[in-house]
């Protein structure tokens, strides 16, 4: 293809500029080190790092994973070394690569979230992804993200201190995700990412015990994709800020589907456990789709669904 016709994959998600729309999803990619052995991280648009908290967290008791048809339940419980060690040890590693760094931030209290945003605003990162949707912790996370007053208070307080693009990650475990999305937008979110995992459960009928040590966990993988596409579609139509779509993406075709539904960029996670090359391969597959369909600019894919 002549240079002039080469697909332009660059995206700008409310100030988060990336060379392509593919981001590794938080919690599935560590801090990038493990997969740097498998491919050049500079091939990705961004990396959303393992969910961070102010202090180190031990995480939940094992087992932390249960395989279910077309997916997995996990109950890791935000095990992480704490935001300070992330800044000290992990940012310098990731900065060796030409890839945007999204810091996924969680807290147990409103004050925790505000402190996280203050600390991360001074760090060398490209975006703060506020995790108001983790289903695996007793306090914070989803408790804030599943009510409009909860999300309004956290996002508006964080907004006051935030000097980075502020992305808010939404939980699907709500009655109407568009209400939550609109509350986040009104409270000052620059962009939204969705969906976090769906709360689920699996039982071993031999032992009669829940498979997960934490009883319940978050469902991800191809099984959740139609729900995620639907929610991205609904939210993209309900707000005017950009939406980053995720939930069961396993290929460039899946990524295109989310973009047609209205996503400005996508995150890929669970599928990488099966094939670590799904992350870089999806970038090429999106470009291939654009070439085939005559899209020069990837941003034109967002919301390009042709409704009946």
């Amino acid at each position, binding site marked *: 293809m002549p240079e002039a016709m080469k697909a332009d994959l660059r995206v700008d998600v409310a100030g988060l500029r990336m060379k392509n729309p593919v981001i590794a999803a938080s919690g599935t990619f*560590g801090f990038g080190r*493990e*997969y740097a052995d498998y491919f050049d991280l500079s091939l990705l648009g961004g990396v959303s790092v393992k969910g961070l908290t102010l202090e180190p967290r031990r995480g939940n008791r*094992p087992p932390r994973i249960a395989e279910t048809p077309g*997916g997995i339940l*996990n109950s890791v419980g935000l095990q992480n070394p704490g935001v300070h060690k992330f800044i000290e040890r992990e940012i310098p590693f990731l900065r060796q690569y030409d890839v945007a760094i999204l810091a996924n931030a969680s807290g147990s209290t409103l004050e925790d979230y505000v402190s996280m945003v203050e600390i991360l605003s001074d760090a060398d990162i490209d975006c703060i992804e506020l995790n108001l949707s983790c289903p695996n912790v007793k306090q914070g996370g989803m408790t804030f993200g599943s009510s409009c007053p909860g999300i309004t208070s956290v996002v508006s307080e964080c907004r006051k201190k935030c000097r980075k693009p502020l992305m808010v990650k939404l939980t699907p475990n709500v009655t109407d995700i568009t209400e939550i999305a609109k509350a986040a937008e009104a409270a000052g979110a620059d962009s939204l990412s969705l969906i976090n995992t769906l709360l689920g459960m699996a039982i071993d009928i031999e032992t009669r015990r829940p498979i997960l040590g934490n009883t319940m966990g978050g469902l991800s*993988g191809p099984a959740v994709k139609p729900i995620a596409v639907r929610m991205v579609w609904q939210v993209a139509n309900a707000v005017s800020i950009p939406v980053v779509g995720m939930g069961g993406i396993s290929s460039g075709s899946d990524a295109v589907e989310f973009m047609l539904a209205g996503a400005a960029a996508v995150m890929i996670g669970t599928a990488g*456990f*099966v094939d670590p090359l799904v992350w870089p391969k999806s970038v090429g597959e999106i470009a291939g789709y654009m070439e085939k369909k005559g899209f020069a600019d990837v941003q034109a894919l967002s919301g390009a669904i042709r409704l009946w």
Partner: protein
Amino acid sequence: MHRERIVRMERLSDDIFRMVLQSGRLTESAKPGQFLNIRCGHSLQAYLRRPISICDVHAGDGTVDIVFQIRGPGTELLGEMKPGEEADVMGPLGNPFKPVNPGGSAIVVGGGIGTFPLLYLLRTMPEVKRTALLGFRTAGAVVMAKEFSSVADCMEIATDDGSLGHHGFVTELLEKRLRTERPDCVYVCGPMPMMRIVTEQCIGMGIPVQVSMEQRMGCGVGACLVCACKKRDGDDFSYTHVCREGPVFDGRDIVFD
């Protein structure tokens, strides 16, 4: 990810299979105690890869054996694979066993499917006095006794029902040995209660012990943090991860519940 050709599939018992892979890459790189993370086809019923320990390596003909038990839809699909097909393999992954120096002595203690990774360990320590203590439920479940006896200087078997060898647990065989012997290291892999007893025995006597842990895994490379196991951390514990920091640990570091 690598495509490795399957050259042989053997059924060792009702539900235990040996898959032989032709791979110079693996024979050169695989160390005892490491595992392969294998894709079980494209079924969404067995979505994740399955971590399978490396059982033996034959440098001469460039083959690697992995042995697994059919335990669910994933291993069922692996058991149906045929010679000539290619397996989609990640690995070798994880930290290996640390060998005993030449001239020393080692005892391996294996229980059931936990015996498999110990075979290659014994093979890699030819100048060490090697004892294999293997425990199984019953005589019908005993696999690879011949292979173990060919690489061990001494082998003893225990069965829960007494249908072969010592009637009782393999831990009793170890206890008896440790009354008269002091090996340079004990290596253990098997059910958690067995590993706990062996580890306590060894620590009590000041004998180094290496344990190979098992836990449900996700990514297999240390990114997803699901395969947690308790590790001593001062007076408390923290969670370490079997795939990346393990599967082999110093027994003194692990908290068995």
